[in-house]
């Protein structure tokens, strides 16, 4: 659970408890149960009345840190849980996710090292990652 990498720090009263799931929950036993924790957090934020978007890695090329199916849940205050790249592009994905929450229209993003701004937002490992960002409605 990549909580410590939040680019936008969460207010003290919103510090997320870890683990999110009780040990007794069968979800705590899921393969990649941290992925399930991200989905549970997305649902709980929505239930609490927050705007929520979900980013999912749908395809990777070459070397990339997170496999297809990895999730990042973003809340309307910029707080997020999970990871889609191990920290390289999360900042940009969070920005896009906030936009998707407002527009209500899903979006496909692609990050690689081919563009000239790669030193700013991209994957240092040389891979490319395609990410689907959708609002939770």
């Amino acid at each position, binding site marked *: 659970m990549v909580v410590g990498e939040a680019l936008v720090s969460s207010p003290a009263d919103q510090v997320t408890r870890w683990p999110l799931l009780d040990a007794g929950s069968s979800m705590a*036993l*899921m393969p990649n149960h941290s992925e399930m924790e991200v989905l549970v957090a997305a*649902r709980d934020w929505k239930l609490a009345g927050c705007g929520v978007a979900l980013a999912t890695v*749908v395809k990777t090329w070459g070397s990339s840190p997170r496999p*297809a199916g990895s999730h990042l849940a973003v809340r309307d205050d910029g707080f997020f849980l999970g990871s889609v790249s191990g920290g390289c592009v999360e900042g940009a994905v969070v920005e896009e996710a906030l936009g998707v929450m407002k527009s209500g229209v899903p979006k496909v993003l692609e990050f690689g090292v081919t563009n000239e701004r790669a030193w700013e937002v991209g994957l240092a490992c040389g891979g490319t990652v395609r990410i689907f960002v959708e609002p939770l409605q």
Partner: protein
Amino acid sequence: MKTGTLDTVLAEIEAKRPILLATDLETGEQRLLRRGDGDTESERIDVERALRVDACITTDAEGAPQVFYQPFNPPLRMILVGAVHIAQPLSAMATLTGYEVTIVDPRESFAAAERFPGVALNLEWPDAALEALSLDQRCVVVTLTHDPKLDDPALQVALRSDAFFIGCLGSKKTHASRLRRLEKAGFSQSELARVKGPVGLPIGARSPAEIAVSVLAQVTETLRKP
């Protein structure tokens, strides 16, 4: 994603029923599918494959809309035969790795809840216990007792199942005699080739925790690089 779709996915995960989310990447439209579902024959094949290999698939046929298939499978299961010392770190590490662990040992003093807090303990005789667990291709069986009375009945059930990993703790010498006993019991050489013994990658492990690392590493290798 609709909140209702997310609720269903989470409920199915909790109920340990495999389910698959199909997303049209152009429109964002989503459908929930189960094994056997699909609009076309090729979609049914993609659904089956994604659930079987437990990996996401994106279709990329020319002209057709791109669809992303994400499977949500029940947890992998690890059945440890023998509530011995090594089972303590191994059950803890396997749980962290995402396995649902069951320890089988009819000896009450070994399979004591105080020794394995939070782990499912089964005190049936190993063959009966493993039959009841309905082993499938998402199961691991590792025998740890060194006692043929307990290990062998478990192995016989495991060898007749689709378990993706079968391993036995013990020296090369005890493994050779184990294989001879199983051969006498009617298992062929090719069936016995599935049994990994002595179980674990050769990393020079000494302590129970190190041996657990070596076993879990070999299980992971078998799962991810079959």
